[in-house]
């Protein structure tokens, strides 16, 4: 529980943070809510020699309606995502999912940007924003670029973000009244999902993403394609794991995970179709 020694600098803007991280190179890490990074450091599974604290970059904490999508600043806390009126109206799936992250303490500290940048396949918000077809805006020394969520996740805790790039905004298309459901299956209320499903449905269209069903969050395209082709919900749900490659762990074998995924996808689509 005692991390290795490290240095600490606090950035007051995105630009300052990016210049600090370029200065200190690959041993530097951004510190947002600290709720993924600090536990790893305490177990000495991560030993960055420099932390650049972006937790107080206030102008990156916002939720704005910008027409066809909602723009969310990377430093917005889960609790703000959960309770935002704008999101409750235009992307209720996301605010609902944010309400399922950890416990109240975690939701007051953890940030949506940290959750996505960390790229943990077991986290709720990467898969949820993936299901919603979000776009992530990142900023580096050479300026900003946009990455579609579908192209962002590269492997276990690996993303398209370069070491000197910072995630600054998450753009979520408005759901336009689509039905939705978030199914999180775990053994204790505050745990990460054993399997999770974020799904929305609008007539012949559906979007489904899976939590903890592979080394990245998984877009269940077979399911959406089947729905688009008019398949029944249970037939579509049977294809839940087509794109997945789930691991075997203490809570679930690969077989059980795949089974859970199809049950939960079916339930999610049923709920979203109501």
């Amino acid at each position, binding site marked *: 529980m005692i991390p290795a020694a490290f240095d600490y600098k606090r950035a007051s803007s995105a630009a300052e943070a990016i210049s600090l991280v370029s200065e200190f190179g690959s041993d530097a890490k951004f510190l947002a809510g600290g709720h993924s990074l600090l536990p790893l450091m305490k177990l000495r599974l991560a030993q960055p020699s420099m932390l650049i604290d972006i937790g107080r970059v206030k102008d990156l904490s916002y939720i704005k309606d910008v027409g066809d999508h909602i723009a969310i600043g990377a430093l917005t806390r889960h609790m703000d995502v959960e309770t935002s009126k704008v999101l409750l109206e235009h992307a209720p799936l996301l605010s609902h999912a944010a309400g399922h992250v950890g416990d109240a303490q975690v939701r007051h500290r953890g940030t949506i940007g940290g959750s996505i940048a960390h790229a943990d396949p077991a986290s709720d918000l990467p898969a949820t924003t993936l299901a919603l077809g979000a776009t992530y805006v990142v900023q580096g020394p050479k300026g900003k670029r946009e990455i579609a969520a579908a192209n962002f996740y590269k492997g276990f805790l690996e993303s398209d973000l370069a070491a000197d790039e910072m995630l600054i905004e998450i753009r979520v298309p408005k759901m336009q009244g689509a039905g939705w459901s978030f199914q999180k299956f775990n*053994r*204790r*209320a505050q*745990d*990460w999902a054993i399997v999770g499903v974020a799904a929305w449905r609008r007539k012949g269209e559906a979007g489904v993403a899976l939590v903890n069903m592979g080394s990245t969050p998984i877009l269940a395209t077979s399911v959406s394609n089947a729905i688009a082709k008019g398949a029944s919900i249970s037939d579509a749900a049977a294809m839940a794991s087509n794109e997945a490659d789930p691991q075997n762990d203490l*809570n*679930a074998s690969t077989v*059980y995970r795949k089974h859970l995924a199809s049950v939960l996808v079916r339930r999610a689509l049923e709920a979203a179709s109501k």
Partner: protein
Amino acid sequence: MTITENKPSKIIGTRLLRREDPPLLTGEAKFTNDLNIPGALHLSVLRSPYAHAKIKSIDVSAALKIAGVVAVYTGKDLQTSWAAPMPCAWAVTTDMKNPAHYPLAIDKVCYVGDGVAAVLATNETASRDALDAIDVQYEPLKAVVDLEDSLSDKNVIHSDLGTNKSYTWPLLVEETPGCVEQAFKKAKYKIKERYVQQRLIPMAMEPRAIVAVPQPFGGDITLYSSTQIPHILKVMSAITLGIPEHQVRVVAPSVGGGFGSKLNVYAEELLCMALARKHNAPVRWVEERSENSQATIQGRGQIQHVELAADENGKITAVRVRIIGDMGAYLQLVTPGVPILGAFLYAGVYDIPKAYDFSCTSVFTNLTPTDAYRGAGRPEATYAIEMGIEALAREMKIDSFELRKRNYIKKEQFPYTAFSGLTYDSGDHLLAAEKAAKMTDLAGVRAQQKKQNVAGATKLLGVGMSSYFEMCGLAPSRVLASLNYSAGGWESATVRVLPTNKVQVITGTSPHGQGHETSWAMIAAEKLGVAPEDVDVLHSDTAISPLGLDTYGSRSLAVGGIAIALACDKVIEKAKLIAAHQLECASEDLQFENGTFSVKGSPDRALPLAAIAFGAFTAHNLPDGCEPNLEAQVSYDPPNFSWPFGTHMCVVEVDTETGAVEILKYIAVDDCGNQINPLIVEGQVHGGVVQGIAQALFEEAVYDMDGNLKTTTLAEYLVPAACDVPAITTAHTVTPSPTNQLGVKGIGEAGTIGAAPTVITAIIDALSSLGVKTMAMPASPQTVWKTINEATSGGKQ
């Protein structure tokens, strides 16, 4: 003995708020690691990453170069620091095998977490960094992880012992020789079941923490430790270190839970003391959570084979039990005794003839040592008999509650001499069970079940129950002697009335969350006729309370509380002599009520205790031969265990598609005799039930084939939180114990004992229409799902 069951009392039986809580809730309370001791060195322990390996070499040179590191010791370096190996106080048989066990391993490690080297540094960070800099070369050996594998002796862990078997402890009680075998031959119905008690990791909120402070001169040493047993620790550490006992003082500051895991003498306590003496400086250590998982004792760890024989009415005619107990790598303080504590309870609350054949064989494994964990042996026993009753009911195709009713020991049979020769003090099992059934609305749930559990349904309803008996209030010293335990079971109390009529109670119990300060003050206040807030309770410091046997085994009230009541009686007796002298009457003519002595029949001739207390202090006017001061000390050895009992029921809904289990309703009817403070009783039941539910649904120390613990953090070891357990409805029946003057029994372990079988039997009940007959613990969703699949596909069950 007559009991004061219905005597109106003003204090005992009230829901007085716990005086312990304000300091705990405001953060004022001082835990061991809060003690600020200048100049203390920090200890860190390097632990073995192998379950079984030879230590080939240890290179500490790089660690010594780290700024702040003062010293690094290996097991060999400290070999001469120990006057004796670490203590095991319970040689359950004369030929029990007990490997020598030292605070640091010497040439071989026997479990992941075994201490290999100790670092002392001026700060925590340096001592932690030094661990990464120590280079140990190991030669890995085959790890023995499985109990049946251990029993085969294919790989012997402690080669000097020649076997992995520590002991076999039989308890064969037969009316006539061979009657058990005959009963099984004659039985109309019989069952034979195998249950596994998974290993559990006690997770006290406060991890273990220690500071050893050598006194500046004279050689005395004070050990602050987050322990349940300051008194036992004092003696045992003195023996292990070879220090005169009177030079050791042990203090347990606020202790944040123990559940048996702090009922031990640990390597780190001995290391802190030995190194503090060597360096003549305070040495402190605080456990990390992953060390808690690996280097604090674990609980349970048994394979149980249970057979019941019954006649045509389902009346049990014989019980046969074979246990394999998992001792882990070494024997800690009472490791071997844990299965034995359950040995007497495999007939549960049932009236059985003298046809009982129990035997426990305990083996070593390359895993963390086991020892007492809330209930210690008794939850295991209750689980086995209650699951056995359910199996027998299935075999007979009758309702399991009906089967229980045919077998319960009846109210009028108490005090009941059991097959074992032990006397069960009092009980009314049927009353408690019927109360639980009524509160559960058993008939209503059964009707709902018929409607809901139809073919194809995916949410199935089940009801479970368990009736338990707990053998607690450890313990009559003579009984402990017959079990080869190397200490007694008495408890000590001193009651002192100060000149201003404030009262000090000094107890040998050592609370760590149970609210003794509140309850003990209530007992003394009731007895002496003072306000509870005028009673101060002192404990957990061997300099203040030199005599005591500490807190475990639901003993504190039934033994320690009675000692306090008796000490109050002695004080009152002495005060009465003084009062008689001052009122110029015979002491037989005096009565004592509401804190005042008065002459029977002439109430105006009276003296309050306050006046006598002051008089005893000034000693100006005492009867001849009467010593000054009002103080009495009592060492009380209980004549019997106390036998709390009860019935728990719960209603579950099982999602057959996912295997998820939801507890819809949990009813606990417990009988602990008279209650001192019902609020505290309910708290004990709540906590206990949650720990039992945790065993049933959530917790398991999972090891891989090489003996690596896979559940080292609280992310993998699933301790349930408040939102993961149901609302618990508690209720009570009150059957006072006739063996002590307060009519009380213990309640600390009851909930844990009742809960696990209640939940598991409910799950099996829910799934019975699918052919499910058994369910492993913890009944995780995956386990439930697999079990359903096996049952419905006609596969192995």
